[in-house]
């Protein structure tokens, strides 16, 4: 995997840490591979951090699953904080490793208040989550991980990727988050990128956003009712009722963002997230405002 150079002007600066993952999410846009690549990327990332622009606002650690690096994750974070003291660090993790409270504690020690962990939750019901994550036991470890991160006072972004298997329970998930995970910094509801598994297994997983908008809006409303921060990623504004526009963010990384012909006449184009250039098909129901 070739890494793009770290660029102060980009909204997506990423350190890719490994292609391995202990989940096997059915809609993964970057399907994991079993290869021994941790040292390779680790050495590469050290060089990347050393040569990075000093005032980079944000750096993201992704994979695969970054926590599979074990303690190397903390050395990398320490290096980033030493070299780029003002840079926020965002780790995208399935959170399972943090079910070990010591591991969560070590992250706090290394990252302190500069680190945020983005953790996907696929369902409030264990077995649905495990099916989507492609791994038995994933749900329980993730939830315990979230609790241990919260106990260390680490900021958490909860990510819910809408798909055919979980959209029916989005309102119930919102209640679950409100009651059981009220400590998360914010919840992001994310439209799926139609590449990787999401595309190849599309009949099982893919659902047009227009079909889950009612459930999505109900879930967003519920969290907002109870004053939880909530955002919608990757859903073009023309698919959302207007009262939910304030929740939608321009979320798609600049390098893989695109607009279609009909977007050219839309007066909301500048505020809209548009589409994934990587997706194989456009959403149904799009129309210019």
């Amino acid at each position, binding site marked *: 995997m070739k890494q793009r150079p770290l660029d102060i002007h980009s909204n997506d600066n990423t350190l890719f840490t490994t292609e391995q993952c202990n989940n096997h999410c059915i809609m993964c846009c970057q399907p994991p591979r079993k290869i021994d690549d941790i040292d390779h990327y680790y050495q590469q990332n050290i060089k990347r951090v050393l040569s990075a622009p000093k005032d980079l606002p944000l750096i993201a650690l992704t994979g695969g699953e970054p926590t599979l690096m074990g303690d190397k994750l903390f050395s990398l974070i320490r290096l980033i904080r030493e070299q780029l003291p003002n840079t926020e660090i965002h780790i995208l993790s399935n959170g399972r490793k943090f*079910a*070990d*409270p010591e591991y969560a504690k070590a992250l706090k020690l290394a990252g302190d208040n500069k680190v945020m962990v983005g953790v996907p939750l696929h369902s409030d019901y264990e077995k649905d989550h495990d099916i989507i994550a492609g791994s038995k036991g994933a749900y*329980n*470890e993730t939830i*315990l991980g979230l*609790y*241990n991160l919260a*106990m260390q006072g680490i900021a958490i972004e909860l990510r819910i990727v809408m798909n055919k298997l979980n959209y029916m329970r989005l309102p119930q998930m919102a209640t679950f988050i409100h009651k059981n995970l009220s400590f998360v910094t914010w919840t992001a509801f994310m439209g799926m990128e139609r590449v990787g598994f999401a595309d190849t297994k599309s009949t099982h997983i893919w659902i047009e956003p227009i079909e889950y908008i009612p459930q999505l809006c109900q879930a967003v409303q519920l969290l907002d009712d109870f004053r939880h921060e909530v955002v919608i990623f990757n859903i073009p504004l023309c698919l959302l009722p207007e009262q939910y526009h304030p929740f939608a963010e321009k979320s798609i990384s600049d390098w893989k963002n695109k607009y279609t012909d009909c977007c050219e006449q839309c007066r909301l184009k500048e505020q809209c997230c548009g589409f994934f250039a990587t997706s194989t098909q456009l959403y149904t129901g799009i129309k210019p405002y």
Partner: protein
Amino acid sequence: MKLSIDRQIYSDACISKVVYWLSAQYAIERTLDGTIETLSISRNDGHPFDETELRSQCLRLLNDYKLRQTIDDETRDIRTILYAKAFADDENLTVE
């Protein structure tokens, strides 16, 4: 009014709970013959009352208390563990 209840179906505790709630309005005498308990029910103020209505109320209450009893019996241990965990000062959570 008399109501016969089989103690093999409804426990003493279930029947007692029904009697407890009815006793604000009714005087209830309990007699036991074998496994059959008979409740002799009359109103405290001596006024007449709708026996059919009271009978179905009693049966509904009995069924509810029987369900509650099952829930209690099956969950007593886990509840104890839950309260012990909640009010003992554990720092972190670990996988069981």
